[in-house]
């Protein structure tokens, strides 16, 4: 037990980060599942983080209520900006959401209430492991259910062929808006949780770099199932820490591993179809032997 207590004291923040990144990767997975390449999720994370932090810092709201605030605020913003921008698709949508992310960052940078470039500090430590576990479990279960529901099938149809989906009677606009907004809610909650165990937030944490990080986690893990994004987030969070003994070389090795994965596993690490194929091949080979 002493060994575990030691381990937990040292690595609890790292484990929390894995959970937060998994939530973020899932939030992007949801928008991607509807065929939307959005780079706005880092900004939604920031909106959630700032909203929740301001609620606990200034208004002393209880943590669950602040978390709710951190979920609702990005949802409202997503509904407002989603209506016009979701008419775009592909790289144009990526550009528009990227611009939205920058606007959000610069807004936070210049507002008085957010502390400007100096950020907010002294945020109370309220996130515990249970919050992350429960929220991640609920999100995972919810997404798994959505995937097999009418809504999820509609998302998939829109991703595969928007015109065909429209002809089949799916309301493409409202479904896209739903995926975008639900993704924003997940990202916002992740931001709110993150703010309450790192004591400090500043605008630069929610910029372009983080948008790309979230995208990398999701793509590296694979988008064909829910396991992929969680796996990608875990690996990208743990890898740099595991390679701490490499000192100055660890970031280079980290990058190298990513390049190798992308080159040899273009559909991501977790691809259920590939596993099934592998299994089939093996069985076939076994059967073929005399």
């Amino acid at each position, binding site marked *: 037990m002493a060994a575990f207590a*030691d381990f937990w004291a*040292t690595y609890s923040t790292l484990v929390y980060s894995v959970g937060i990144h998994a939530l973020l990767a899932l939030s992007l997975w949801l928008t991607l599942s509807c065929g939307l390449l959005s780079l706005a999720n880092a900004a939604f994370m920031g909106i959630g983080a700032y909203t929740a932090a301001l609620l606990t810092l200034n208004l002393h709201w209880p943590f669950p209520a602040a978390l709710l605030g951190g979920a609702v605020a990005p949802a409202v913003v997503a509904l407002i900006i989603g209506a016009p921008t979701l008419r775009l698709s592909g790289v144009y949508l990526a550009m528009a959401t990227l611009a939205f992310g920058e606007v959000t960052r610069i807004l936070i940078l210049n507002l008085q209430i957010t502390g400007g*470039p100096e*950020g907010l500090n002294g945020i109370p430590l309220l996130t515990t492991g249970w919050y992350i576990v429960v929220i991640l479990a609920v999100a995972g279960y919810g997404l798994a259910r959505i995937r097999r529901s009418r809504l999820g099938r509609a998302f998939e149809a829109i991703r595969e062929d928007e015109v065909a989906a429209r002809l089949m009677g799916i309301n493409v606009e409202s479904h896209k808006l739903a995926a975008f907004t639900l993704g924003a809610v997940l990202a916002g909650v992740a931001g709110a949780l993150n703010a309450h165990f790192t*004591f400090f937030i500043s605008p630069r*944490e929610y910029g372009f770099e983080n948008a790309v990080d979230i995208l990398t986690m999701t793509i590296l893990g694979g988008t064909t199932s829910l396991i992929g994004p969680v796996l990608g987030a875990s690996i990208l969070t743990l890898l740099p820490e595991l390679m701490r*003994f490499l000192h100055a070389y660890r970031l280079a090795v980290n990058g190298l591993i990513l390049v190798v994965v992308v080159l040899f596993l273009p559909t991501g690490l977790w691809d259920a179809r590939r596993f099934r194929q592998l299994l089939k091949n093996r069985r076939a080979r076994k059967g073929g032997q005399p």
Partner: protein
Amino acid sequence: MNRVSKHFSLALAGLLAVTAVAGDLKIGVAEALTGGAAQYGVPIRNGFQLAADEINAKGGVNGNKLVLVIEDEQGKKEEAINVFKKLIFQDKVLMIFGPTLSNSMFAAGPVANAAKVVAFGTSNTANGITEVGPYVFRNSVMESDVLPVTVSTAVKHYKIKKVAVIYGNDDAFTKSGYDVFKKVLEDQKIPVTTTETYVKGDVDFKAQLTKIKATNPDAIICSGLAEEAANIIVQARGLGLKVPFIGGNGFNSPKMFEVSKTAGEGTFVGSPWANTNPNAANQHFVAAYKAKYGSDPNQFAAQAYDAMTIAAAALKTVKITGNLPADRQALQEALPKVSITGATGPFKFRQAAPKDGKPSGYDADQKPFIYVIRDGKFVLFTGK
């Protein structure tokens, strides 16, 4: 693979909860050694290493050797927290130096404070750092201690009546520098003709400078990092603005002269450290640093060097019992009593004002040096 095995044995020692080998004083160093903040983190680490090597060469502290456990925190807040926890709970260090950036200290400081381990920043100048708690120390001098002296010296020298201000408004460092300048100008009742802003990465400042020129100030106050500040000075001269500049801490870099050459003549800058300061400790430090690393030290290396000296002076008065929490506590109590004369001159701590009734940590109580730029060099201002 000596490094790997060393690391492995450290981890093993941590897992088995074995206290440090008697005779070794383990001290954590968490600095940004990669990434954008490495330009500060690397000289800081060098300063620590130089000081620790010298102390060990002289037989250590009361016969115990200083062992540095150095970790890279990349200038990121999550990394800073992870590294702090690793140093505190796994490597079981007596105290931690770092992290490099103020933002990282805001995130990692509370971790150390909750674990009752000293976190000693050598480069964190932001306001409110030491309000985290009584286990947070720093020997970096705050801008609010440096800038009033810089401004009043320059005002007296140039007989300044009114000034224009330009600053970077998207960077924590330059923005907080501006806030201090603003307060200093109000306190010293110097009218501001106009306040202009720019963002990091800008290269063209002519629009702002033209506006400033139209208001005809006696001097320009600039809170910016060296890269931008050098460009601002060059472009001001290009527009025919001949008035002197007054700079914040960001000016304290050799990079100033790579771009501005001699355009910055007459600029006033305040710094906690002067490379030409003739005191014996500083002369020794400058020579030893150059001999070991082959380059001139900067302010950050000097402050790190002094911080290690301060910690060693405190450790000298502590009786190491091998009971880690007690030793950490004794160190925290011994540190505020230290007063030394180091590379940055005479130094002692000053407890920060308590916040919300909770005790605060300790800030540096030190006088800054005022420099003026002459012939493309920082020259100590002596009143002439």
